[in-house]
């Protein structure tokens, strides 16, 4: 069990009771493969018997649809954009993330507040202000930052995905370049710089996203297993009220999960 810890101001009416779930964040710029990795992690976690909730930006019942509509019309101003996304975030935090954590779920989130902070800051928004208003956010158990070497590498991924450059992913509202390609590279470079800057501030665990999907997945499983390790330990300790020695539990769960990482389809994965 862990105390709820917020970055600054807790949400009104939130009971600050300890919770047993884990909040795991996958962050990074566009096209680093976040969504793919979240899906792989979810499948793996469920196969090892963990209840998982996954969530991500603009998926709230309250504001998701409105944001998508505003984005499609390219009518979202600099300030309104930040507050609309914060509304979306708060709705998911109150109605999805916190209840799931209390129920002992592993919450996997595809982007968290850091993408919102980066987007705001590169748009000239006061970094202090955006951090203060996102102070309602819960401090996660782990943040994995999928990092890529350059914006040019991201641009190649867009082309390989056979999609067009997106208006917002290219930061077209900022008029940073002569065309979509130039704007995309300039905008994503600013975002990369902002993410790098936040790495130390928020203690991101950096994962090299230039490597193959399989290698990134394996790295994430290792690291996530470590986070869950603590969860199992504390749960069993509470459940058996001290009759089992924690060292024993640690050894069994670790070995089972290690083999699950090497070979996700093995029986060990199911046992774990």
């Amino acid at each position, binding site marked *: 069990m862990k105390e709820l810890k917020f970055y600054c101001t807790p949400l009104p009416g939130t009971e600050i009771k300890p919770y047993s779930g884990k909040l795991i964040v996958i962050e990074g710029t566009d096209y680093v493969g976040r969504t793919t990795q979240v899906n792989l992690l979810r499948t793996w976690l469920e196969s090892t018997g963990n209840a998982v909730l996954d969530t991500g930006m603009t998926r709230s019942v309250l504001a998701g649809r409105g944001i998508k509509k505003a984005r499609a019309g390219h009518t979202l101003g600099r300030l309104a954009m930040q507050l609309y996304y914060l509304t979306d975030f708060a709705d998911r935090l109150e109605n999805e993330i916190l209840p799931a954590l209390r129920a002992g779920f592993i919450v996997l989130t595809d982007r968290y507040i850091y993408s919102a902070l980066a987007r705001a800051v590169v748009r000239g928004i006061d970094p202090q202000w955006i951090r203060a208003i996102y102070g*309602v956010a819960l401090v996660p158990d782990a943040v994995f930052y999928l990092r890529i070497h350059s914006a040019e590498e991201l641009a190649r991924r867009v082309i390989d995905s056979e999609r067009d450059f997106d208006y917002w992913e290219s930061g077209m509202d900022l008029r940073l370049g002569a065309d979509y390609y130039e704007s995309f590279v300039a905008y994503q470079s600013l975002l990369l710089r902002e993410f790098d800057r936040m790495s130390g501030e928020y203690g991101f665990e950096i994962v090299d996203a230039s490597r193959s999907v399989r290698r990134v997945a394996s790295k994430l499983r290792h690291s996530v297993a470590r986070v869950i390790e603590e969860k199992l330990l504390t749960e069993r300790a509470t459940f058996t009220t001290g009759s089992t020695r924690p060292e024993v539990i640690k050894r069994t769960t670790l070995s089972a999960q290690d083999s699950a990482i090497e070979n996700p389809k093995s029986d060990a994965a199911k046992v774990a």
Partner: protein
Amino acid sequence: MSISSHCDQEISGAFPIKALTHHHPSYAQQHYPGQLFVVEGTDGSGKSTQLSLLYQWLKSEGHSVVFSEWNSSPLVKDTTRRAKKRRLFTPTTFSLLHATDFADRIERNIIPPLKAGAIVLADRYIYTAFARDVARGCNRSWVRELYKFAIKPTAAFFFRTPLDVAIDRIVSTRPKLKFYEVGMDMDWAQEEEESFRIFQGRVLSEYDRMVKEFDFTVIDGTQPIPLQQRQIRAIVSSYLTKTREKAVLKK
């Protein structure tokens, strides 16, 4: 993991973004050629009546006047309507969606006319959010932080009306009060009218504590309508003559 950066005030210098030079302004820091007058008060305080009289007068005097209403952004309208109907709001998201609405309005209909030198009249401003959201339990300083991007008005008129008078006006003129309007989301009371009374009482006490904080011009909302209007016009006139030499004011 650092938590302090979300609360302390000493990190702003550390983010030199070269590509973008425009600076994000905060409350009380802008100086636009236009003038911004806002009216505030509980429901039924008579502020909208007074503002529309002021609008007519300023127009007839030949000024460029823009009227801006609370909760009117086309960007957020559908989301708000749906959320009210399906009762999706918590105090936090209620506060945030209204802040989004306001941000869109300020970027679209308040700052541009102020830059152009027009007079902007706002029926409700950020103080409405400060009063309502805090009445709903939001953190007082968090809500103020949320609206830090707002522009400090030239003058903010607070129409102070005793609770009973305001409630009588609303109940007698409006056939049906809405769920969030009466504060039924807060479970303060079983009865709508009782809930409304509690809510408006809390709102009024928040307004009262803001009088000094934001230097409100208090207007006694129980006075006859023409008398209130005379007071407002006199104050607005003095601001206009002070800062706009071109304004020719005939009394």
